[in-house]
Every structure is written in C-alpha cells, then in structure tokens.
C-alpha cells in the first residue's frame, strides 16, 4: 500500500515539475486553452491503449496487438459507416451500427488472444506478436492499402466535439479510466487478475479459474483498443490501416512508467493516468519546440530504458529494506 502511494506521489511530482518547467519557458504556446484542448484530444487515443497494456501486464502478460486491433476494428467500423451512410437507414442507427461493429470486432480479436494465452498456453508476448500481424493483415486485405474516408457528421462529434468545453475524447477516457479503476479495485475479476499476476500457481491452488481471468483480461484489452479506434477514426474522419503503430511503444512505456510491474501483480489506474499526463505534457513540449516525430521515437525508447533501470535500482533497495523491516516486524509481534 505504501509503495503504491509513494509511486503515485513520485509521478505526481514529476508531472508538476515537467509541467512547471514547460510552463515557465513556453507559456505563450503551452498555457493556452487551444493547447489544453489539443492535448485533451490527443492523449485518449494512446491513453486507452495504455490502459489495455496495463491490464495485460498486471496478469504478467503483454498485448502487442492493441494497435492492430485498433486498426482492424477501425477499418471494419469505417466500412460499415461509409457503406450505410448513404442508405435509407436513419443516421443514428448507422452510427450505432458502426460503433457496435468496432466493439464487436475488437472483442472478437481479444477473445482470440485470450484463447491462445489461456487455453493453448502460448506466452502472451509471442501470441500477440503473431495476432498483431494477423489483425493488421486482415485490415490491409480489406482496405487494399487505401484509406476509407467520410463518415456521418454526428459521428464526428466523438472525435471533434466538446461538452462544456471539454473535448469528448477526454470525457470518454475519464469515464473509461474510472470504470477500469473500479474493475481493479472493486470487482472479483479485477482482484483475481492481480492475484493471478502475482502467482498463477497459487491462484490455481486457491480455486480461481485462471482461464476465465485471462480471457477476461484479453477481451478487455481488445475492447479498449476498439474504443480507441472509434475515437481515432471519428477524430480524423478517415482510417488507414497501420495508423497508430507508434502507439505500441508508447503504451508499453506508459504502463511501466505508471508503476505497473511487467512481471505481474501490481498496477494502478491513478499511476497510469499520471504517466499519461506526463507523456502528453512532454509530447506537447516537444511539439512546441518543433522536434520531429523521429526525435520523439528516440526519446520514448530512451525513457523506457531509463524507467526500467530506475525500477531495477529501486527494487534492489526495496528488497534490502523489506528484509530489514520483516525482521523488525517479527520482533514487534513476538515471533510466533
């Protein structure tokens, strides 16, 4: 408990510091409503994917296919939308159909991942590496490499509209994040996920249905990717297979930065959200300073390594103090 708190506190401090530095040096471009709105529109896209990878990592796995699921469900939804929007169906129904298509496709993809990991026992990393190609491949086959463009205007509200001045995506993200947080802390599945990630063996010996924990996890990661696709395609009013492939590194980085242990068992939505904000602020800063997207790639890779190195040292220190604390605790309660 303590470590979770200190973790999140550290992240909060980092966020404030970075935000502060950028605000001091670039107030004119950073501290504007336009910039904040823009940030609010950008981060939900990869934010949802980061949530997805956080869930996968909590169970000790990883989902490398999130961006491909996004691609595929986006393509399918786009096909439905562009196909039916000129038909006799009412606009609302078309939009609903499109959204449902995206979600259904993403859940199906997630289920495939789940079957591979839970029942065939393929390690998550390799299973999702394979399905990543599979899903992306299907989206390429469907679109033949072209874009699909032009969706019903009301649909575009999701990606471009705002409620009370707050961008729609932002609202969607906050709602989803809260739900995921609730899932982790207050539901049986969320709890079981964390325990499973701690030790699959003990989990099984405790009568937990490991397979359904894993299936649920990957269906959720799929669903989150599907949600992301809706936001993305409505934001740019088009879809291109392979969009957002850079988000994969970002989602892994954010999950780890947010305090999720890739070995499983630990992770908080609060930490993840703070990590997302940190990365978005950094990104905006880099954008304002007109650094190229290549530099960002370089930076994110570097950050990932740095965070892992930092965790390494912190774990060593924590282990030493934990052993000390254990001895002290046993003393305190009388060694029975």
């Amino acid at each position, binding site marked *: 408990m303590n470590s979770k708190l200190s973790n999140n506190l550290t992240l909060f401090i980092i966020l404030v510091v970075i935000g502060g530095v950028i605000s001091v040096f670039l107030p004119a471009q950073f501290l504007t409503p336009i910039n904040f709105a823009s940030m609010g529109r950008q981060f939900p896209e990869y934010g949802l994917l980061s949530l997805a990878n956080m869930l996968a990592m909590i169970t000790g796995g*990883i989902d490398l296919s999130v961006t491909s699921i996004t691609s595929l469900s986006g393509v399918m939804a786009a096909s439905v939308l562009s196909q039916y929007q000129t038909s006799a169906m009412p606009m609302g129904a078309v939009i609903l159909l499109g959204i449902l298509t995206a979600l259904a496709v993403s859940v199906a993809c997630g289920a495939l991942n789940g079957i*591979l990991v839970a029942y065939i026992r393929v390690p998550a990393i390799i299973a999702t590496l394979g399905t990543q190609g599979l899903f*992306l491949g299907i989206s390429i086959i469907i679109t033949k490499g072209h874009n699909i463009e032009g969706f019903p205007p009301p649909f575009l509200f999701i990606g471009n509209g705002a409620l009370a001045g707050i961008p729609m995506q932002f609202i969607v993200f906050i709602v989803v994040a809260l739900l995921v947080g609730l899932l982790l802390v207050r539901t049986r599945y969320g709890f079981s996920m964390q325990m499973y990630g701690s030790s699959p063996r003990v989990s099984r010996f405790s009568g937990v249905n490991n397979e359904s924990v894993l299936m649920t996890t990957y269906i959720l990661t799929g669903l989150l990717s599907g949600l992301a696709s809706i936001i993305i395609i409505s934001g740019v009013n088009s879809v291109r297979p392979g969009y957002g492939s850079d988000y994969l590194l970002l989602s892994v980085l954010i999950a780890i930065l947010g305090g999720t242990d890739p070995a499983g068992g630990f992770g908080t939505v609060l930490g993840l959200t703070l990590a997302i904000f940190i990365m978005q602020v950094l990104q905006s800063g880099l954008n304002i300073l007109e650094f190229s997207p290549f530099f960002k790639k370089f930076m994110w890779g570097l950050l990932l390594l740095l965070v892992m190195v930092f965790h390494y040292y912190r774990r060593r220190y924590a282990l030493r103090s934990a052993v000390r604390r254990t001895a002290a605790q046993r003393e305190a309660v009388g060694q029975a």
Partner: protein
Amino acid sequence: MNSIFRRNEFYLLLVIIVFSAAITIVNPAFLTVENMFDLIRSSTGMCILAIGFFVVLLSGGLDVSFPAVAIVAQYITVNVLIATGVDNLAFAFLLAAAIGIAFGAVNAFFISMFRIPTFIVTLATMNIFHGAMLEFVGTKAINAGQLPNAFKGFGLTYLFSLPRGDGTYYGLTVLAAILVGIIIITWLILRFTVMGRVIYALGGNAEAVKRAGFNITRTQFFIYCYAGLLASIMGIIHVSLIRYSNATYIINTELLHVIAAVVLGGASIMGGTGTLTGTVLGVVMISILEKNLVLLGLSSYWQQFFVGLIIVLGVSITFVQKRFQGRRTFALSRD
C-alpha cells in the same frame, strides 16, 4: 530423441517440396535454374537476419531490434561513403559491422546489467537507434544514381553465369556465398565452441549455467553483438541488391517474416531448442510463399495476414503438442 528433431525439419522439407510441385504445375517457370537463383538472391537477406534472431532465441531472448540495426547500419554506411567519397566495399563492411556490433553491445549491456527483459530492451533500442538515425542523419533516400559503385558492383557480382537464349546472362549471386559462409560459421560456433553450447544451455536453464561458473555476461555480449553483426551485414547486402537506400525500409517488413520463418523452422520460442537447418528451411518456405501467393489467387495484400497466421498456428501447434506430451501431476509442473 534425435528422431523428434529430424521430424520437424523433415515435415517442413516435405511441405516445401509439395508446395513447390504444386506451384510448378501452375507455373512451370518456377522450377527453372534462373528462378532458383532469383529465389536465393531475394531470400539471402531474410536468412541472415533469421540466423541472428535464431541465435538470440536459442539463449532464451527475443531481439526485435535487428531490423533497425540493419537499416541504420546500412543508411549510415551509405551516407558516410558518399560523404567521404571512399568507394570501397571492404570499408563499407567494416563500418557497418562496427555499427552493428556497437548496437548489439548496447542491447547486451542493458540486458545483463539491469536484468531488464530482452523484449523490452530491444523494443526500446529499436526506437532509439532508428529514431536517432532519422533525426540526426536524415531521411533522404539514396537512389541508384547516387549510390557508390562499391555497392552496385557487389550486387551484380556473380559466382558464375549462365546464358539465356537472347544473349543476356543470369547467375548465382556472390551473396549466396556469403550466406553459406555465415551458415557454416554459425553452425561451427553453435556446435563446436563452448560459447555455442552455453548459448543452448542458457535457453534451457540459465540458473544452472550461472551456478556452474560460466561468465554469462560475456556470453550475452557475444550473442547480441553477433546478432548485430549479422544484421549489419544484411543491411549492406540489402542495399547492394535493391540499389536503393531508404531510411524506412526493412523495418516495416522483416520483423514478422523472420519470426515466422524461425517459428516454422521448429525453434522453440522459449529457447534451448532449434536447428539451423530448420531456420533455413523456414526462410525458404516463407520466401516461396511470399513470391507465389498470387498463384493461390491472393493478392500481395494477404502477405501480412499469412505471416501472422503462420506465427499463430506454428506456436499454437508447438504448445498444444507440449500439453499432450507432459501429462504429469499438476503440482509438479510450472503453471
């Protein structure tokens, strides 16, 4: 038992033969010497990358940075050659090799010093290397006109030539010799050096290797530097073949193809088992598949899908097999 090993590669060979036969029926031009030479030419690159990936996989690691190493080594070398005016193939190879080995060393450093999972390290370094190159060196593509002759000449060198009917010639590229050389050297290393045996051992039980007193750090450095070296060699070969250096090539295509080839060849994703023969056969199969998808009535858009499908199916079959083989008491097993 040895027969199990022979089984996987044998079946793969069988599949290749059957598939080739089927293709030849549809397109008799497939089974000609010229086409064979062409096939060799186009799969040399993938094969070299696959061998590097295979060696890392044997030790229980997963290196996804190799496409980046290949293209970075290539692009930088080409630019340096152009900038300095030195048009020397040996120099090109040396420079590329140095870059490849250096990047491999970076990978090994983070993997052995900080116990970071290999996938995460190489995911990070892939972006670091490539991002840095695109940012600091540039993104301008180099076309055949600007390419130093060293590369172009190299790409057109043949071991021997055969005449076609109309007076032109085709031949077996010298690159094949390089590939064969790499295969032989890798085989020798894996089979006859202590380092090679330790690589296998690491994939089987890293803890035991440590207890036995081996210097694991040194082995890790060797493994990743070797993989980096092979990747950089592939980069030079690649540019010599296609006579074009684009900073975003290789990186988008080769990763999954190589993994699919290695998986097809029977190497275990967890490390410790696999053969070079299997890897090479896997590359052959993937190459043939790539070039002849059209004959199955499928456009080239189906490639990505098939590669992903092969990985998923290949790995699933392996793991399902394992579950049926090991019906031991639950409490004694891993999960």
